[in-house]
């Protein structure tokens, strides 16, 4: 079947449009791309759109040979289905890299001797808050697990084969955002990722909210654990509605300040076994909470419903009544807890939540200012499935609707984490963890001007504007493009440092450069070769030609490898590379 490349009109939604590239890749299976339902893909745009590159750019942290090969074998729909079942994807290699980064290199230094202390060297993964807190009790020692937590997330983004999963985790991390640099979050933030985000990133959203509400990281971050009946604290109550469920539409909320007060009252008693409880002694130090249990230091951070701090009585939120003015006698131990659990279920079930989450997801992945029809579709998938997340992703990336969501008029910028990680995925540098904390850098590893200076490429991401857990405010990093256009110098600086081996702990040698450009590529073809590597050739033609002109100018005075480095750096610096396909 021949399909000459032609420019479709927007009306011809059923027209099959193939680029030369797709024809070459599809092979004998024919020129048809099939949607999830088996219907022919409607490809809306003139040549210059590759649905598979689009999917990889949006649902991975950056193009690499492995994912490209997988999508070429499985096809668009097949790749999506495969990635939506992450537990079936063997990720041992990535986890080995992460574990090696944690175990192999001492980043904890004894505060007395100033020497690396292998006995205290440990990882921060799969630990309880108590274990992390006991391991790193001080503010200085807390810098190690802080750095390690962010590094673990960045390394998984770079190396994991469960790309879609970690991309979704990144999204939800920003919806339920807590600040890694808050005091004591070094013991709480990573457990939050492991117990709230990862279990539900492709699961049920109501379960995520309930887990988030009860987790120590959120409890501490928004002061919830200290909220009691004498003086309910509104901080978490507000963000539960404003950020985690109902949201705002056009700056207006369906809830008002009285609702916030009432939610705060419902959540009184929602607390944790806190440091204050441990240090100062809790009124019932032996047995308390719901269900009643004895708690000690090893239970630091565990959720506790402190019934005696709960404000009983009727509360009304958005017209619905919670609690009662009539209480049973005697009072069962967990009585009162269900008010908050019912509240969360009700909030998640509301249409505003579906619309809010749909809007955030579309803005994060596809476009600023999404059209209402698209929001409705994705919100509908959320609502009709009972707040399941996978149907939202399937709806959002349903290839049948690529017309509607194609980004040619709706540019989506590469966010800083994606920018840095994509560069790593494209170039596959050697990461030398030992160099990150060599003797010369020991002061930087402890504190210095920045705890990130020992992990420079993570620090670069911060300078560009984003790092896991790095957002001080609970609203998480923004989804809109314009928030990120200012970090240009830092992007260019990182691209230059990566390409020229100036980024501590990352290095590219001739073999790595061969991996980017191909072996013995003529200097006159370097820009196009890099274009193929990072964007399958879809970068702006003008950018590629202009970069080649620049490389040609330098050719007499630079070595072949230096030319390749400079070319790679400039490709990463090109304006069209700052946007996703």
């Amino acid at each position, binding site marked *: 079947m021949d399909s000459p490349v032609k420019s479709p009109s927007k009306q011809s939604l059923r027209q099959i449009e193939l680029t030369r590239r797709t024809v070459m890749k599809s092979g004998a299976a024919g020129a048809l791309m099939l949607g999830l339902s088996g219907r022919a893909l409607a490809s809306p745009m003139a040549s210059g759109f590759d649905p598979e590159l689009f999917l990889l750019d949006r649902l991975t942290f950056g193009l690499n040979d492995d994912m490209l090969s997988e999508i070429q074998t499985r096809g668009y729909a097949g790749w999506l289905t495969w990635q939506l079942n992450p537990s079936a994807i063997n990720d041992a290699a990535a986890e080995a890299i992460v574990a090696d980064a944690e175990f192999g290199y001492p980043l904890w230094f004894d505060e007395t001797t100033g020497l690396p202390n292998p006995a205290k060297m440990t990882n921060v993964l799969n630990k309880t808050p108590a274990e992390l807190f006991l391991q790193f009790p001080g503010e200085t020692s807390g810098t190690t697990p802080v750095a390690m937590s962010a590094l673990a997330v960045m390394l998984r983004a770079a190396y994991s084969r469960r790309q879609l999963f970690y991309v979704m985790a990144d999204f939800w991390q920003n919806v339920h955002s807590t600040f890694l640099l808050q005091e004591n979050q070094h013991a709480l933030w990573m457990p939050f990722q492991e117990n709230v985000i990862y279990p539900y990133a492709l699961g049920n959203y109501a379960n995520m909210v309930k887990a988030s509400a009860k987790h120590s990281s959120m409890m501490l971050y928004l002061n919830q654990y*200290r909220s009691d009946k004498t003086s309910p604290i509104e901080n978490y109550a507000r963000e539960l509605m404003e950020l985690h469920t109902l949201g705002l539409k056009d*700056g207006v909320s369906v809830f008002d300040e009285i609702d916030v007060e009432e939610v705060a009252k419902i959540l009184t008693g929602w607390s944790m076994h806190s440091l204050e409880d441990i240090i100062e002694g809790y009124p019932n130090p032996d047995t308390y909470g719901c269900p009643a249990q004895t708690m000690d230091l090893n239970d630091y951070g565990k959720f506790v419903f402190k019934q005696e701090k709960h404000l009983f009585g009727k509360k009304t939120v958005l017209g619905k009544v919670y609690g009662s003015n009539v209480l049973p006698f005697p009072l069962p131990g967990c009585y009162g807890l269900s008010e908050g659990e019912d509240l969360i279920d009700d909030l998640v079930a509301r249409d505003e939540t579906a619309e809010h989450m749909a809007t955030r997801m579309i803005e994060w992945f596809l476009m600023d200012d999404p059209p209402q029809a698209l929001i409705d579709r994705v919100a509908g998938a959320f609502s009709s499935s009972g707040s399941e997340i996978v149907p939202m992703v399937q709806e959002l990336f349903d290839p049948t609707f690529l017309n509607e969501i194609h980004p040619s008029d709706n540019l989506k910028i590469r966010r800083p984490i994606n920018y840095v990680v994509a560069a790593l995925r494209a170039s596959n540098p050697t990461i030398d963890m030992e160099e990150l904390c060599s003797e010369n850098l020991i002061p930087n590893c402890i504190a210095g001007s920045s705890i990130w200076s020992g992990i420079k490429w993570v620090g670069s991401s911060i300078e560009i504007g984003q790092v896991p857990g790095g957002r001080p405010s609970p609203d998480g990093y923004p989804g809109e493009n314009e928030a990120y256009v200012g970090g240009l110098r830092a992007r260019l600086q990182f691209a230059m440092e990566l390409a020229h081996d100036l980024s501590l702990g990352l290095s590219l040698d001739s073999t790595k450069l061969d991996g980017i450009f191909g072996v013995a590529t003529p200097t006159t073809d370097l820009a196009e070769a890099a274009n193929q590597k990072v964007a399958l050739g879809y970068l702006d033609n003008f950018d590629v030609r202009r970069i080649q002109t620049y490389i040609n*100018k330098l050719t007499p005075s630079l070595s072949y490898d230096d030319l390749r480095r400079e070319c790679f750096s400039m490709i990463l*610096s090109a304006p069209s590379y700052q946007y996703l396909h």
Partner: protein
Amino acid sequence: MSHEERTLVPGLEGTCEEKLSRRDLARSFRTLRTALAGVGAVGVGATASGQDLFSSQPPTESRLPKQQVPGTGGAKPAFLLSIFLRGGADGLSILAPCDDPNYQAARNATRIWNPADVGLPDPSMAGIPLTAGIPGLPDFWMPQVLQPLKDLFDEPNSKLALFHASGSVDPTRSHFEQQNQMESGTTGNASPPQPSGWCGRHLVTKTDHFIGKGLFRGFSYSNFLAQTLNGGQGVTPIPDPTNYAFPIKPGASQAQEDARADALETMYDKFGDPLDTSMESVLKAIAVLNNVDFDSYTPATGVMYPPTKFGTELKQAAQLAKTVDKLEVVQLNTGSWDTHDAQGVFAAGGRMYDLMDELAKGLEAFKKDMVDDGREFIVLVMTEFGRTLAENSSAGTDHGHGGVTIAMGTNVIGGQVYGTWPGLAPGQLDIGDMVTTTDIRDIIGEVVASALKNPNTGIVVPPEPGVYEYAPVGFMA
């Protein structure tokens, strides 16, 4: 109408019923939002093409034209230092009506005392007197940590003006909504959340100092451009101006550096906005900042900036104000002032104490450093809201409404506390919090109109027909 006559705009008390009318207003002003949305992050062609920012169609030319109306150069534009206290600073701990029985009853660990009062729990809680016997105002004290501000306030020909019960007239207690509203110079009533900032719109409507291509008119100390500056020409976020070099491999030849810069400039120019203007600002900022020797800067005699990040940024801002004529605005943040628990007003190490300490010492240093330089300056300090009148059970306060604003500058009529005192009795509060009687937009508008000599207040702090229109407070000479 004068600011004394202004009252809370009806319909903004925050009940569900009243919110309905707010939504209707929001819809009717959507065209305003669409028009202003075209301003975006990097400027608008509105002024150059004569297009009205308020037209119902979004500007068709969203790209900043290369050739601006050439300016005369002339005198240096006044320098604006915009400071945002993030988190909601407790105004009642900055300007405390110590003799007000409602204040006394509501505060405990955070209560500032009239030193003459019997029962003063600790000497550290005794206030320092600021104003007394002013008709219409209660007597005000400050906590001792703010002595440098009191000194600025008391000196003859004072340049420090204070506003209490000021801020947004929108009653939302949400950080994000309020910061957005205040930085955008609008309220939730006027229009939905705005991308552009009041200072961004100021910059695009005041271009008479612009000469030539490539602008570096302002920056915010941040990784993200502060919303205050959104939409402005020649603005970029700069986390550290001492570390802002052109990205190129060290040791590269000048020829290569020039070729690289040319390639980047050409590509971004062709690609267009929003990246194009951002790149131009970056390149210009790099060129300017590379010529500034931050290490060798000596402030004016006797000036001591606090040894914190904020203090360092203030010092750098002063140096840049003195040496970079075309740099017009620097935006800084401090915080978090969001003291839900352990507010810590009276002792070093306390959260609010430490923040007030660096703010007071920093403002004092900046003023002394700038006052004898030939360049006019204006400092505007705002926060998204004040905090609850009542202290909570954690020795902290929660989100409130009316708060404190500070203005300091060459032509500020200082030594006064501006604004109508609304009172703290139960019937005078908004769900338990001091209300706003001075709209922050009037303060912003007067800064722009008077200190920055930009008459376009209709664009910088847009009117809401029948609801709001800018009128100066009267704190500028």
